[in-house]
C-alpha cells in the first residue's frame, strides 16, 4: 500500500486546492461526527494522507448525547441520533487539539450551540485556538429560544446567526447547510450575504425507522439523521442547485461518498472539496483510499489538475 501511496504523491496530477480560505494538499476531507477527533483513526489509516479532518461538532460545554439505541441501518444508508455528544471547547483544547495539530492534515472544527450567544461564544473561542485552520458551523440544531425550530431552516434566522459568528470568528468560517428545506439556494445566499467563506452541503436528512416486531421506533429519539449512499442523489442535486444559482462561495460536497467516482461527480456538480462521512464506518481507511484512487483515476483520464473538474458538468 505504501507503494501506492508514494505513487499518489509523485503522480503527475495536482490534487492541491485552495478552498474557503484554506489550502489543502488534496480535496478529500472527513465529515464531522464520522471521524471523531482523528486520533481514533491513528492506527486505522494514514492521517497525513488526508486533505483535512473535520472534527465532531463542539459545543461550549461537554454533552453526553442521546438515549439509546442511537443508530440503525436503512437501505444503503443509516439513521443516527447521537445527540451531538462531544467534549466541549475546553476538553477539545486540552485533550483533542494537541494530537490534531500534528496529524499532518488541515483541521476544521465543527461547532454548534442552542442559542445565538452559544454559537458566538463557541465560535470565538475555537477560532482563537492555534492549530485550528477553519470552523464549520453546524446549523442543524434546535433553537431553544425559538421553540426548537432548527436555526438552519429559515434564511433570515440563518443569515443573522452567520453574521453574528462572522463578526467574532477571525478564521475561515464554513457553514454546513441542512437539506431539510424546500429551497437550498435561499439558505446558501443567506450565508453568502452574511460573510460565510464556504458552504458544506449537505448534513443528514431527517428520517425514521420502525421495528415492526416491537412496534417501536428503531432509535430512541424517534427521528434521526439519514446518511450514506441513499442520500447521494439529493446531495448532488443541492450542490448543483447552489452552484447553478451562482452563489459566490466554494462548496464542500457531502453525502454518500464512497469512492473516487463519487468525488468526481460532486466536483462536476460544483464542489471544490468533498467530505467522506458514513463510509468511514464501512472502512476506516476509506478517505485515504479515495485520495489514492482519485490520483490514479485522474492520471488515467489525462487530467493534470483536479480543479479542472469543478463545475465541469456538461449540460445540454
Amino acid at each position, binding site marked *: *500500500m505504501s507503494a501506492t501511496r508514494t505513487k499518489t504523491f509523485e503522480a503527475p496530477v495536482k490534487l492541491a486546492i485552495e478552498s474557503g480560505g484554506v489550502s489543502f494538499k488534496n480535496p478529500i476531507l472527513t465529515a464531522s*461526527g*464520522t*471521524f*471523531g477527533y482523528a486520533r*481514533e*483513526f491513528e*492506527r*486505522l*489509516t494514514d492521517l497525513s494522507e488526508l486533505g483535512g479532518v473535520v472534527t465532531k461538532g463542539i459545543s461550549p460545554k461537554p454533552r*453526553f*448525547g442521546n*438515549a*439509546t*439505541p*442511537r*443508530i*440503525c*441501518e436503512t*437501505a*444503503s*444508508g*443509516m439513521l*443516527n441520533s*447521537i445527540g451531538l*455528544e462531544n467534549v466541549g471547547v475546553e476538553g477539545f483544547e486540552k485533550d483533542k487539539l494537541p494530537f490534531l495539530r500534528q496529524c499532518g492534515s488541515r483541521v476544521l472544527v465543527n461547532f454548534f450551540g442552542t442559542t445565538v450567544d452559544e454559537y458566538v461564544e463557541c465560535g470565538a473561542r475555537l477560532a482563537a485556538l492555534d492549530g485550528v485552520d477553519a470552523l464549520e458551523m453546524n446549523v442543524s440544531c434546535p433553537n431553544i429560544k425559538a421553540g426548537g425550530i432548527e436555526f438552519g431552516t429559515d434564511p433570515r434566522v440563518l443569515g443573522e446567526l452567520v453574521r453574528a459568528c462572522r463578526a467574532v470568528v477571525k478564521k475561515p468560517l464554513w457553514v454546513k447547510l441542512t437539506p431539510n428545506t424546500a429551497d437550498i439556494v435561499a439558505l446558501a445566499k443567506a450565508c453568502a450575504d452574511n460573510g460565510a467563506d464556504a458552504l458544506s452541503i449537505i448534513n443528514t436528512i431527517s428520517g425514521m425507522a420502525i421495528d415492526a416486531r416491537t412496534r417501536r421506533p428503531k432509535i430512541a429519539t424517534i427521528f434521526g439523521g439519514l446518511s*450514506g*449512499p441513499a442520500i447521494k442523489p439529493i446531495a448532488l442535486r443541492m450542490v448543483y442547485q447552489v452552484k447553478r444559482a451562482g452563489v459566490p462561495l466554494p462548496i464542500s460536497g457531502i453525502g454518500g461518498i*464512497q469512492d473516487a467516482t463519487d468525488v468526481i461527480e460532486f466536483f462536476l456538480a460544483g464542489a471544490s472539496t468533498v467530505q467522506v462521512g*458514513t463510509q*468511514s*464506518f*464501512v*472502512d*476506516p*481507511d476509506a478517505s485515504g483510499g479515495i485520495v489514492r484512487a482519485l490520483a490514479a483515476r485522474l492520471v488515467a483520464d489525462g487530467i493534470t489538475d483536479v480543479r479542472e473538474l469543478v463545475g465541469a458538468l456538461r449540460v445540454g
Partner: protein
Amino acid sequence: MRYFDARLDENRSLGGGYFVLGLAGCESLSAAKPGQFVMIRGDWQRDPLLPRAFSLMSIGPDGRAEVLAKTVGRGTQMLERTLPGATIHVLGPLGTAFPEPQADVVDLLVAGGVGLPPMYMQAAWAAERKVAAQSEVLYGGRGAADIVLTEDMKAMGVGLHVTTEDGSVGTKGLVTVALEERLEVHRKAGRSVRVMGCGPNGMLWAIGRIAREREVPCFISLEEQMACGIGVCLGCAIPARSRPFRYVCSNGPVFDAADVLDVKPAP
C-alpha cells in the same frame, strides 16, 4: 490495522438458521482472545451498507478463523447465502476479552443461543491451558435447534449443562436456573467462582443480578447496534455507572457486570 480480505473456505449450516463461517487468511487475528470480535462485510454492493460484528469462535495457528452466525436479518441472510470461495472483508481483533482461565477458580460460562462463540472459545482456552476441569459451559436456548456444537465442547473436557425452554434437549427451563444451581453447588464446596456470559441482553442482566446477589465476579459480553466497531460513531452507547455512557465496541463488548447492570439511562 486495516480491513483485510479473508477467503470463505467453508459455510457450514447447523440447522435452525445457525451456520459456521470458516475464514482463511486471518493470520492477523491470531492473538485474539475470547470475547473479542471482528467486523465483517461480504463482497456485495451498497445494501447491507454497514459491516456486522461477530464474536470470534476460534482462530487457529494456520490463520483460519471461525464465526458462528444466526440468520435474523439482511446481513446474516447475505452471509448464509455466500458460497465458499467468496471474499469476506474482515477487521479485527476488536474490543475487550474475558479474563484468562485459572487453575484455582471455577468459571461458569453462560451462553444463550448465538451468544455461544466467546464461551466456546473460552472453554477451548481453558482446555489449552489444561484447566478445562475448572470450566463449565451453561448453555441455554429456546429449543433443540438453538443448541449446537455440544460435541466439540464435550471433547474439550469442560463441564456442559444444556437447558432449553421447551425441554426438547437438556434440562427444561432457563439457563439462569441452571446457573443458580451450579453457584449453589460450588458455594457449598467453598470454591471461588467467576461467572461469564454472552447472549441476549435480557439473559445477561439476569445473570448479572444473580452474580451480584451472591457477590461473585461477573463479566458479560453485551450487544448493541453498531456502525463502525471502532469507537467513532458513538452509536453503540450503553448507560454505565463509571461514566454516563460506555461503548460496546471500544469499552466492551466484555464488561464487568457491576459497571453496566441496572443503570438508569441518563435523561
